[in-house]
């Protein structure tokens, strides 16, 4: 093993200094950190909006903020969290950093485009921020017409342009990953030797590349319709608002998988490493990612069962929706089976993985509820849906993201995070999350519609629970933010392979050198082969 200390080795952080060296960098690792800083900003911004929303909902009447302000808050919460946090979250940070490293490449295929995509993202984010400062937007993140085109009096076009621009950042990231995974793999690294994180990133990229343009053009049409008073979707002039919903959900349903598939990839890595076992049913898990990406495009109409879609179409979409549940179920079962006879340690990433599997199971099962035609009629557009997608996106994606951050933090920064605090925060996040969102399932079944600023009194009990949970959850997110920053300076120096993991990213120094590997690695075994590590130690 290499014995030199971190300080003496050239790494990507110390290779160059100065603002310019960051803003003009073409190094995927540095770009990943640029993304990390920007999405963290948007996450906390969206989080502040969520906090105000929860405080408003503590009491039935609308007493904290005005109705208009409340509508802007939930719209911006949705827009920022979906388009500026969740969609870029794992792909643009951890994916950007580790896709090349895990396949033994020096960089992504198109480093300049990678940097460009960050600038595009920032431009999109700036548009949304500017619209927010000017007065915000109150259409909800779904921009349903004709409200968004003809009735809203807020900054719809500017926000739409922001999302349109940010969409291209997402497309370029996906494009870069697909080419990189196809063309840049290390010698010997065949498709079925790839880590499952790579498979999931590949599937995610497919959706980004093939889905995003449709929502981009849809939002463009909304902006044009609003700007020039056309009637593309507005029925008052001859258009059809349901067509907008089709186009919107063609992307925005698969977008859910853009958010959760990378999380699934992280969980596959983490579950394997901390039980020191190969992922059970590797091929099933790998193919299930691709299956989710493809099938995910066939089910969007389950958002429209009561939107005056034809009964026949609803029937087809409901039927197809159950097919996408199958690969998700396969993943959950295979992760569970991986634990069997493993050597399980309870490091923080593993705690997050346990949390993910549990919460994703609940989120997934309630997802099949929502695909069930009759049931959906009652709960669609209620808090049941709110709870369901927060279980997937916060309980799923965000838990995985935090798990992945802890797992790879030593590699990214060369420092360890404080294990005790990390375990505590994992627990706080898990408890806070459930307290926040579980009551919302009941609220939804009771009939509490979503996007309500004020509500009848009988719903208050659950809202109080939810707000209490949200405050716990907020603490749970602030703790890691604090200790991650703390660890940059005071954390223990991380060894190259603190978890004894077999992935290629762990076979180089922490933090990695600018070109990732001093010599291009040659792969001779399948992923998650722990016997190799044993031999290396002995030898």
């Amino acid at each position, binding site marked *: 093993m290499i014995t030199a200390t971190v300080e003496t080795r050239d790494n990507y952080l110390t290779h160059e200094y100065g603002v310019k060296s960051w803003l003009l960098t073409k190094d995927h690792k540095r770009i990943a950190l640029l993304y990390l800083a920007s999405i963290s900003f948007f996450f906390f911004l969206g989080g502040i909006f969520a906090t105000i929303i929860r405080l408003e909902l503590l009491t039935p009447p609308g007493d904290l903020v005005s109705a208009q302000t409340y509508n802007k808050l939930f719209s911006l919460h949705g827009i920022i969290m979906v388009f500026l946090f969740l969609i870029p979250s794992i792909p643009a940070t951890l994916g950007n950093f580790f896709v090349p490293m895990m396949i033994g490449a020096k960089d992504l295929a*198109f480093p300049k485009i990678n940097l460009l995509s960050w600038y595009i993202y920032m431009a999109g984010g700036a548009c949304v921020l500017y619209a927010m400062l000017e007065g915000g937007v109150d259409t909800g993140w779904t921009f349903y017409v004709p409200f968004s085109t003809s009735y809203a009096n807020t900054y719809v076009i500017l926000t739409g342009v922001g999302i349109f621009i940010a969409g291209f950042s997402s497309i370029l990231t996906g*494009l870069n990953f697909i080419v990189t995974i196809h063309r840049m793999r290390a010698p010997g690294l065949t498709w079925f030797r790839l880590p499952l994180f790579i498979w999931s990133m590949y599937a995610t990229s497919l959706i980004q*590349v*093939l889905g995003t*343009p449709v929502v981009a053009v849809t939002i463009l*049409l909304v902006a044009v319709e609003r700007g020039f008073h056309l009637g593309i979707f507005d029925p008052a002039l001859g258009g059809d608002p349901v067509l907008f919903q089709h186009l919107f959900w063609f992307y925005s349903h698969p977008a859910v998988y853009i958010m959760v598939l990378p999380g699934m990839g992280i969980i596959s890595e983490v579950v394997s490493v901390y039980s020191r076992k190969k992922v059970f049913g590797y091929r099933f898990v790998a193919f299930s990612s691709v299956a989710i990406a493809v099938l995910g495009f066939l089910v969007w109409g389950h958002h429209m069962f009561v939107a005056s879609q034809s009964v026949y179409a609803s029937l087809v979409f409901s039927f197809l929706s159950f097919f996408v549940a199958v690969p998700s179920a396969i993943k959950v079962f295979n992760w569970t089976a991986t634990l069997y006879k493993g050597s399980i340690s309870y490091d923080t990433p593993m705690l997050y993985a346990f949390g993910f599997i549990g919460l994703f199971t609940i989120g997934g099962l309630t997802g099949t509820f929502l695909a069930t035609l009759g049931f959906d009629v009652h709960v669609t557009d209620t808090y049941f849906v709110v709870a369901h997608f927060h279980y997937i996106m916060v309980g799923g994606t965000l838990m995985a993201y935090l798990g992945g951050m802890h797992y790879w933090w030593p590699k990214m920064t060369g420092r360890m995070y404080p294990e005790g605090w990390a375990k505590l925060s994992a627990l706080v996040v898990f408890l806070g999350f459930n307290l926040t969102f579980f009551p919302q399932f009941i609220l939804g079944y009771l009939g509490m519609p979503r996007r309500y600023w004020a509500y009848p009194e009988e719903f208050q009990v659950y809202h109080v629970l939810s707000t209490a949970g949200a405050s716990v959850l907020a603490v749970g997110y602030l703790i890691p933010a604090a200790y991650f920053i703390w660890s940059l300076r005071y954390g223990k120096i991380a060894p190259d392979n603190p978890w004894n993991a077999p992935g290629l990213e762990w076979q180089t120094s922490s933090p990695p050198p600018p070109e990732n590997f001093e010599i291009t690695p040659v792969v001779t075994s399948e992923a998650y082969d722990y016997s190799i590590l044993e031999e290396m130690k002995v030898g």
Partner: protein
Amino acid sequence: MANHSLALRHQFDDVEQQKDASTFGMWIFLATEVLFFGGMFCCYTVYRSRYPMAFGNASNHLDLILGAVSTAILIFSSFTMACGVNSAATGAKNALVGFLSLTILFAAAFLVIEMSEWHMLYKEGLMPGFNFTYKEFDPGHVQLFFCMYFAMTGLHASHVTIGIGILAVMAIRAWRGAFGPEYFTPIEISGLYWHFVDLVWIFLFPLYYLIARHLQG
């Protein structure tokens, strides 16, 4: 990059890998573009299937001959572009510059014709949002036809304009001798983009000018 003919960027192992990656990347981008236009094609299809008569009446306000001529011009430009790629591959520098310039010329001619048609429609009161005075048959859905017409041809025209920019840069680089038989990937990729622009028009032409003409109410 000191040596243009062997401009190998650090992340690649060899020129072949770099070239493959670039072409593949362009194809993925074009797949994205298909879906980008696809959203609008979807709108068109839905409305055309619902309001065939309105679309028929509206379609007769477009100038079929102008449409056919601009189609032919774009095909011309596609042809000269293809010849440009061939010249690049065979190292014929002057021919490459010539073909690229011709392509740009045809592209500009296409835009001129298109803009004159737009202007005509504007004067006839058939431009929703600016001047729409049509009152005859089913105005709401005729309006829809022209909304989609301007949206789709507009998006296409913006692609043509971007294409002219790209080709101009390529022509200048070619003139300075940046390309040769070993290295002309940028030309090839720009060619793919340009053919795609032609491809979109190959569908826009029949959809707007041809398939509804016979329907009149």
